[in-house]
């Protein structure tokens, strides 16, 4: 009987230390989330300026640019999946990966070949475990992506998009990332980034369509577009990475919050069980003593 009590004590102890870890992770995620959201916000002026400029060029000239033209010479498409580096974030990576799988299925159904580009260690190990080929991956900075990483990602993908069909060029780029709706809701989203659709929707739905003044282009509309469009892609990818990181932290915070609560529940259950084991032991001891005394008195 004493053994039983010891088992419960040990379980309570280990659950308590787990709870401490969960609580610490919750607090760390909570403290980083504000920073991550501030970084998302800090990129807004840049993104807005670029979107407006792209819209201005698109409305005032009918320049054809390789990044805005549909490619029919290849049936390869690139898919960029943004996941986290570490687990302990609830279903964050799993949801993004499920969305990506659905997208890949659909693309396969359309007879397309998919080149996988993965950000985040969880995504890399998911595809490696299944023996899928990954064209390129970026790991190590999913909770605090830098401009340099976003640039590297964007440049790799732009290069793939602009490459010849014979050199493994891709005809489209889809991005799967997790949109930060609010602290409790993060939604996986699929965005087709390339070829760019600036002509139909000059501001991508994020900005009111305004009447643009008649701009002079210096040195020429083509060259301005050349400078603008790759930057536009970079800024979009950077904002996807940042938003995903905010989502990751929010998912981690709520997952760790639930884990802390579950640990507390377990501790409560184990404490009850330990108490009832102790009481059972006492009751047994009393009945042993009483029956012993009875036996002595009877003799």
């Amino acid at each position, binding site marked *: 009987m004493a053994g039983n009590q010891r088992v419960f004590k040990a379980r309570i102890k280990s659950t308590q230390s787990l709870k401490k870890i969960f609580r610490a992770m919750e607090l760390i995620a909570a403290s980083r989330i504000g920073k991550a959201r501030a970084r998302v916000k800090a990129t807004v002026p840049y993104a807005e*300026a670029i979107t407006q400029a792209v819209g201005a060029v698109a409305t005032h000239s009918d320049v054809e640019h390789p990044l805005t033209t549909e490619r029919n010479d290849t049936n390869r498409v690139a898919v960029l999946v943004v996941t986290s580096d570490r687990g302990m974030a609830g279903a964050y990576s799993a949801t993004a990966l499920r969305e990506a799988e659905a997208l890949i299925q659909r693309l396969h159904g359309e007879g397309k070949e998919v080149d996988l580009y993965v950000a985040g260690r969880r995504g890399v190990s998911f595809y490696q475990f299944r023996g899928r080929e990954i064209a390129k991956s970026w790991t190590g900075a999913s909770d605090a992506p830098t401009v340099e990483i976003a640039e590297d990602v964007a440049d790799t993908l732009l290069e793939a998009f602009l490459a010849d069909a014979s050199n493994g060029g891709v005809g489209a780029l889809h991005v799967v990332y997790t949109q930060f709706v609010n602290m409790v809701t993060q939604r996986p989203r699929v965005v087709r980034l390339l070829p760019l659709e600036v002509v139909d929707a000059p501001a991508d739905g994020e900005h009111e369509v305004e009447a643009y003044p008649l*701009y002079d*282009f*210096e*040195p020429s509309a083509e060259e301005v577009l050349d*400078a603008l469009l790759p930057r536009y892609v970079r800024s979009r990818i950077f904002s996807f990475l940042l938003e995903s990181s905010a989502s990751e932290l929010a998912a981690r915070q709520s997952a760790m919050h639930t884990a802390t609560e579950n640990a507390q529940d377990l501790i409560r259950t184990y404490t009850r069980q330990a108490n009832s084991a102790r009481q059972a032991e006492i009751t047994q001891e009393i009945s042993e003593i009483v029956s012993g005394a009875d036996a002595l008195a009877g003799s």
Partner: protein
Amino acid sequence: MAHMSVDVVAADRKVWSGDATLVSAPAADGEIGILAGHSPMLSALTSGSVRVTDPRGNKRVFVVSGGFLSVDQDVVTIVVDNATDADTPGH
């Protein structure tokens, strides 16, 4: 004296914003200067330094590495990949 409002933004933050009387920037074809009342313009920038003169005559210099500049009704937006404020080194 007429002013323009100037925003200098980098990919991850707004670097500077304020009023100015003169902005000079490294355009693709050579240095350009912009005064208030300039016609709307979009220009590609190469790397170099952007100089902004504010209404009190103070000059600010930003070292930039490629980007573009837009002028629209006395609102100048300078969008660059990377900008360092030359006045406050280490930032």
